[in-house]
Each structure stands twice: as structure tokens, then as C-alpha cells.
């Protein structure tokens, strides 16, 4: 089985993000592998270990992704593709999906595993849109995966009514949730070996496509500005008569926070 997994370099969300003049303050930010994609990588590596699959990762944009890709190599991924092109700056999920489509078509993959969403965009769309473009079956929010045979996999999806058990015919696309596994620490030995491994870096032309074809120039939506979000601060603290303040809080929960 040949697996393609996507890996996006995103801002480390442990850091405090400052917004100034409608833009994110870049100073002091560090970039890391998208948490969900780390799970995708771990899923791919486990499939390699258990079912002998061949694994490839693809990363789009992000500048110098060498460290991130090497870390994935150290986790066990065998091949790496990095698509970097100056026109990809304002790419949205649809553009990413188009580029991924081109990457997919260049290879011969049976299964595409992406993270459920990216921690910078919070979108959760790319994997599903890719499946539409490729005309492949897709299950999102997967929390368990099992290989049935060369042509079929069984996945568990965390749905609204419970856990959905779905059988997929390959080739297929799955997007995984963080609860699917615990990504391993890259093996020490793997880190040493990874230093020598090559990464296949390509721009859109080398990939056999163009900015127009993937829709770079005409994104369907664009970010007009960033705004501050309320950081997690302590909210309202109530002291006093238990019955009174509890009633007050429940009222707030229902009508202000709208959680009931």
C-alpha cells in the first residue's frame, strides 16, 4: 500500500498571538508541525510498521521546512515532497487541495491521510475538498483505522450520534483527529539518519502545473484583517450565598454563554 500524508508548517499555538493593525505580529513567533498532521504522520508510520505500507509526505509552502520534514523522517516516513512557490502565499483550502491533487496524480497512492484541520486556519476543509477533486471516498474525523486487505480499510469516525464504523474502498482519503494515536518522539537514531535523507523540493512548474491552474491568483476568499480574540482570562468570579450565585451562574451559562 502506498500512503501519502500531508504535513503543514504552522505557527506554534502555545505562544501568545498578538494582533496589531489588523495583522498578526510575526516577531517572536515560532513554527511547528500542525498537531493533527503529526497524528497523520504517526498513522502512516504505524500502517507502515503493521502492514508494510510505503509512506510519502507532502508539504506545501512554509519556506524552509527541512527541520520539520526531517523530524517526520525520523518518525519513520520514507519519502518527502515539498512544494514551494512564491505564488502560494495567499493560498486557501481549495488551492491547497488542487496542488495536492497534482501531487497525488504524479504518484500512485492508495491512501491519503491528512490531519483533520490545521491549527492556524482552523478550517478542516482541505482533505475533504481533495477527495472531491479526486473523486475518492472520504471519511473525516477518523479515530481508528484498520487495514482489511489490499483494497479495503475500516475506519472509526467520531460522529454526532456516536462512533461510526465505515468500510472504505481504496484509493481513499481520510482525515484524522488527535485522539487516533499519540505521535511518537522521533527516534534518536532516526534523527541521525534523517540528516542524510533527501527532500524532493519542487515549485508549481516542476510539479507540472501553474499558478492559474491551481487557482492561486483568484482565491475564493481572502483574509481582510485579523482581530484580537479574547484571550483566556479569568471571567466572572462569584462569592457569597451559594444558592444565589449558583442560580446566577446557571443563568449566565444558559443565556450568555449559551451552553445549555
Amino acid at each position, binding site marked *: 500500500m502506498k500512503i501519502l500524508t500531508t504535513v503543514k508548517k504552522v505557527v*506554534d499555538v*502555545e*505562544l*501568545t498571538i498578538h494582533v496589531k493593525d489588523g495583522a498578526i505580529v510575526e516577531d*517572536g513567533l*515560532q513554527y*511547528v508541525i500542525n498537531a493533527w498532521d503529526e497524528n497523520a504522520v504517526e498513522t502512516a508510520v504505524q500502517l507502515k510498521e503493521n502492514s508494510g505500507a510505503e509512506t510519502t509526505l507532502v508539504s506545501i509552502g512554509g519556506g524552509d521546512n527541512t527541520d520539520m520534514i526531517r523530524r517526520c523522517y525520523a518518525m519513520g516516513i520514507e519519502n518527502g515532497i515539498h512544494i514551494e512557490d512564491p505564488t502560494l502565499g495567499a493560498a486557501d483550502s481549495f488551492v491547497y487541495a488542487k496542488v495536492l491533487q497534482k501531487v497525488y496524480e504524479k504518484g500512485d497512492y492508495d491512501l491519503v491521510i491528512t490531519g483533520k484541520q490545521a491549527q492556524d486556519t482552523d478550517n478542516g476543509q482541505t482533505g475533504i475538498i481533495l477527495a472531491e477533486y479526486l473523486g475518492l471516498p472520504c471519511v473525516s474525523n477518523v479515530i481508528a483505522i484498520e487495514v482489511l486487505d489490499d483494497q479495503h480499510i475500516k475506519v472509526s469516525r467520531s460522529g454526532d450520534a456516536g462512533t461510526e464504523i465505515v468500510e472504505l474502498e481504496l484509493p481513499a482519503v481520510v482525515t484524522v483527529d488527535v485522539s487516533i494515536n*499519540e505521535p*511518537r*518522539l522521533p*527516534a*534518536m*537514531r532516526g*534523527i*541521525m539518519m534523517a540528516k542524510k535523507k533527501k527532500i524532493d523540493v519542487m515549485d508549481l512548474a516542476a510539479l507540472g502545473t501553474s499558478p492559474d491552474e491551481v487557482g492561486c491568483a483568484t482565491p475564493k476568499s481572502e483574509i481582510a484583517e485579523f482581530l484580537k480574540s479574547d484571550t483566556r482570562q479569568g471571567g466572572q468570579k462569584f462569592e457569597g450565598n451559594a444558592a444565589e450565585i449558583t442560580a446566577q451562574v446557571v443563568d449566565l451559562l444558559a443565556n450568555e454563554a449559551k451552553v445549555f
Partner: protein
Amino acid sequence: MNPLLISLLIIVALSVFGRTMFGKIQLLKALEPADRVNHLKERLMNMVILAIGQKRLVGRAKERSSGIMHAFIFWGFCILLIRSLTLYGEGFQQGYHLPFLGGDYLLGYLYVALKDIIEAIVLLMIIFAFFRRAVLKPKRMHNTFEAYLVLGLIGILMASDLLYDGARYNLIQLYNNPGSIHYFNNPQYGSEFLWTPISVAAASLISGLGVDANTAFLTIMFWLHICTQLVFLNLLPLGKHFHVITALPNVFLKSLGYPHEKPKLLDLEDEAAWEDESLGINHIHQLNWKQGLDLYTCTECGRCKEVCPTYTTDKPLNLHEFNDKLKQELLENADNIIKKAKLSSTIEQIEDSAQIEKLKEEINALNSKKQLIGEVIAEDTLWACTTCRACEEVCPVAIEHVPRITAMRQGQFLMAEAYPKELNPALKGLERNGNPWGIGYDKRADWAEGLDIKTMADDQNVDYLLWVGCAGSFDDRSKKVTTSLVRILQKAGISFAILGIEEKCTGDYARRVGNEMLFQMMAQENIETLNNYNVKKIITACPHCLNTLKHEYPPMGGDYDVIHHAEFIDQLVQKGKIQLKQSLAGALTYHDPCYLGRYNNIFDQPRSILRSVSKGVLKELERHGRESFCCGAGGGRMWMDETIGKRINLERSEEIVRRQVSNVAVGCPFCMTMIEDGMKELGREEEIKTMDIAELVEKDMA
């Protein structure tokens, strides 16, 4: 007596012994190298105090009686060696004596008197030893046939010599010396037997049996003594009594600790090391010779188990069993290891690369493939250790348990990639954001807001760098300690700054769990930052930071004068830079942190400070000072769940509760967390306040 017979016995016994010893030494030489032949004067002192002086036995309040018992057996042994030589001589020539120890010299008489008393004392000690083992049965000991056998043999040695001399006395004094036995009879000092009352008493036991019986006793006791001794000699290398021979060298060669010895810095760039899996210890042949000697020397006394916080809370880390299992494995592989060493030494002389390759293959085939962890030692055993070093503190023969455990963890981590996965979040957090909780590095200096503190980036021309540490920066409870310390420094007018968000975890726990790669990465980054700012002196409130910065950074290029806040505050008090009102009421006790006390020898300064702040009495915990009981967080255990046995922090908290105090002072953020948690769990957090030294001082400052 019989020169031919005695020559024969000596030759046979010594040949066998020599052969055994040769094998044992060869095995050690074939193991990995260790740099221990240095600082000879200091090593000699250690040997004199610990081994000859039996300091850890006689000098330890606990079980002093058994310590004295053993000390006398040992000293007796040493003193009686001279006697033994005389006896062997007697086998060749009647009345043989060593120079200056014959009948013409006072020294000779003094010696026989001494020998007499000593033999009696040793015999009594042996009886006491039997009694302890068989009747009192202390928990730490385990009774084996070997133990009783050796006691028996020593008993026989003493008894036989006394009876030999007893028979001599009878024949000489009572039966008019028919065989013309030689004895001291100098007119100035009198008869030998005036000086040996014990032998005379022994003589009276057999005096009534007649001249023939006594002559028989003379001969039999003589040969019994000789043979027992020669058999005993050959039994020594075979079991735990090898320590009789190896203890002195082992103590001589023991680790001199910081600053003489630092943990071995692994070269992670060395590809060959990755190839033959020689980073850390995974297989028995990777031990170094000192570690091999340690294994030979374990006396199975069990003192390590008694003080080990994990063993006493029912975790599977039984240190003497650990030693024993490794020793068995080592001995089983002895032949291969020796062969391997021989082949390796020939490689130097060979030029032909094909031959070298072939040799390398042969060598590889001789390497033990058995994984020590998993096949010889259980995983839980290895990871239970908190690296507190209580075991090393009490071991009478100075075995170095903890570095071996750390090296095995390195092997597991780096080579076998097997380690408790629950460490992942703490390790990932460290890698990414420089702290075990993975909190954004940009928040590391948030605690300092409003406290008017400079960062090195603002002004590096300060006297001290205050190294805050991860707990002090992020943990709510520890932040209060940092704030207290800052207030003290400001009050005393000390010029200092912090690194702020440029500070990263020292990497201590990464190293303790065997992740040498991550440790070196953190160290390199920190050292670069520190050197950039030309930092010379560092104050820290965390003993783990203290230990790492002070002792483990120098081999990587970071040399700083690091001082714990307890030391520093003590200096401030002594110099009068801060005044203390001694206003703390209620009884107080102090919990010695392992990394401050045992690792860095800081015991007095905290106590001196506490006496200055407290008007109540400063009580000592039962297990205090050098034998303080670990809080359970060291060795990376802070980041792991404790699922086996009783929780260590609970054990320690109960001990504190028993002491009936209102306050327990600590000097370490880990101890703070563990003990406070323990108090909460026991429901005592209102009655017994857990406070850091800095907090107590801040409250008490005038």
C-alpha cells in the same frame, strides 16, 4: 611442622587462587575503560576513612552495633594476617617468627597479646553475627548458605588458632614440653603465656585430656587452620565475599564526585557508536571495568534497599538483586568478553582492510545480544529510580549505582528507543518551548511583571544572573518562591538580572531519563545565551538547575560560579545585608532535597537560616541530612505516574506529620510540589505549612 606438606598445600591453593584471580582481572581489563587512576592522595584518604576506617559501618548511627561487629571482624582480619604468615612459617621451620616480632622483642610480645584478644573478639563477633542472622533476622539481609558458611569458616579459623595455642600451652606448661616446642621466654618479659590469657583459657578446655590428646590437638588445629584458610581464600572470589579482596580497591577507585568526575558526555555525532550500539549501556559487554568491579564487590548487605525510596515503597527496584543479576550475566559472558578484547587489541597491528572487516565481524559475533533491560532487568526496575543517591551514601563498599542506571537509561532511550511513553509530553514540551509543560516560551517571564526586574538584554552588567528555572517561571506555587527570592535580593541591594524569555530548561530531567540528545541541545542553547552575556555568577532556587549548571555544563563549554539561594541568603545574613527578626512561631523541620544535600553537600546553610527565622525549635526528621528521604520527583519521575506500590511523597509526608511541626521548609520546587501534595492528601495542609526557605526569609525580613 612439615615443609613438604605445607609447600604442597600452599602451591596448590595459590595456583588455584591465582588462576581464579587472573580470570577475574582479565575480565575487568576486557571491559570498557574508565579513568580512575588519578588524584591518588584523595583516593588514599577515601580508602583509609571508608574502607579501613569502616566509616559507613561504625560511623553510622543506625545499626552501629552491627557496624562495630563487622569492623572488628575486618580489623581483626588485618591484624591476624601477620599471625597467619607466622603460622605458615611454622610449617617450614619450628618457631618461625617475622622480623622484630620474635621473643626477643617487646613488639613480639605485644603482638601476641593483641592477637590473643583480637581472636577472642572476632570469635564473639562471629557468634553475634550468627545470632543476628538466624534469630534477629534484620529485614535488609537475606540469608544464604554462603553467608553461614563464611561465618562458620571464620569461626573455625579463630577457634582453631586458639586451641592450637591452647594445646601448645598445655604441652609446654603442663606436660613439660616433650616435643621441645618453641615459645617466647625472654627473661625481661616473661613467658609468652603471661601475655595471652585467652589462649590459656582455651588451653584449660583441653588440659585434662592428656599429653597425647594435646599433641594431636596441636597438629590437627594447625593443619585445620591452614587448610581452612587456604580453602577460604579460594572461596572468596566465588561469591559475595569477594569483597574481602575487592573492597579496598573498589573504595580506592571510587568516584570522587564533582568536580573531579562528570557524567560521561556522549558523542552523538559518532556514527560508529550508533552502528555498534555503544551509546549508553544496553548489553553486558558495555560495562566499564569499574562497574564490573562494583558488581564483584557487592556484599549483598541490603543497606541500599533500606534507604531506597522506591524499594521501601514496594517498587521493583531491589538494588542488590540488580547488582547480582548483572554480575551473573557478566560472569556468564566472561569468556566472550575476554576473547573480544584479545581480538580487538590485534586489530591495531593489522593493515589489510579485508582482514579488519573479518575481525570486526568476529568481534561483533562475540558481543552479547541479550538486552539487559527486558531480559535481565525488568523495565519497571530501571525506571523506578529517582536518582536520589541514598544507596550510594550508605553503601559500605562505595558502589556507584546511579550512574549505571542513568547509562542504562541512555541505552534504552538512544538505542533501544524504549522508554516510558508518558514522558512524551514533557520531552516534546522541552524541545519545542523549553519547559516540560510546553507552555509558550514567550510567557516565561510573565511572573516578573510588576517586580521591576532587569533582563540581561536590558543590562548585562550586573553581578549575578538569577536563574529562575521552569517551575519558578511557570508553576503557580513556585512563582511565589521566585517572587520571595527577588524581594530578598532587592532588599539586600544585590545587582542581578534574569534571562527572561531567553532562559530555557537546563535539560536536567532529559538527561536523567536518558535522552542525551535533548539534554545536549538544551545545554548548547543555554550555554550560548549565557556566554553571549558573559555570565559569571548564577543564583538559583532549584537544586536540579544548580546541579546541572554547576557540574554538567562545564564539559560542554559553560563554566559558571553557581550558587543555591540557601547558600546565598545565608551569606547575606552572615554579612548583615538582611536582618531577620526570628519571628516564625511553631516547631519547624527541614526536608533536605537530594540534589542540594547529597549531590551538592549543602546541609548547614539552610539550617542556619532556619534557626535565624524561627523562634520555635528546629526539629530534624528521622531521615535527614545525608540520609534524607527523597520526595520522589527526581530522575524524571516528576513527569511520570507512580502506579506501583505506595507513593513516595506520601511516605515522606507521613514522616513529616509524625514529627509534629507547624512548618516544613524545603529548598526545591519539586520537593515543594511533592510534599505539599502529600500534605493535602493527608488532609494536613492547614496545620502544616510547606514553605520554601526564601518565603520564610522574606516574611521574616526586617
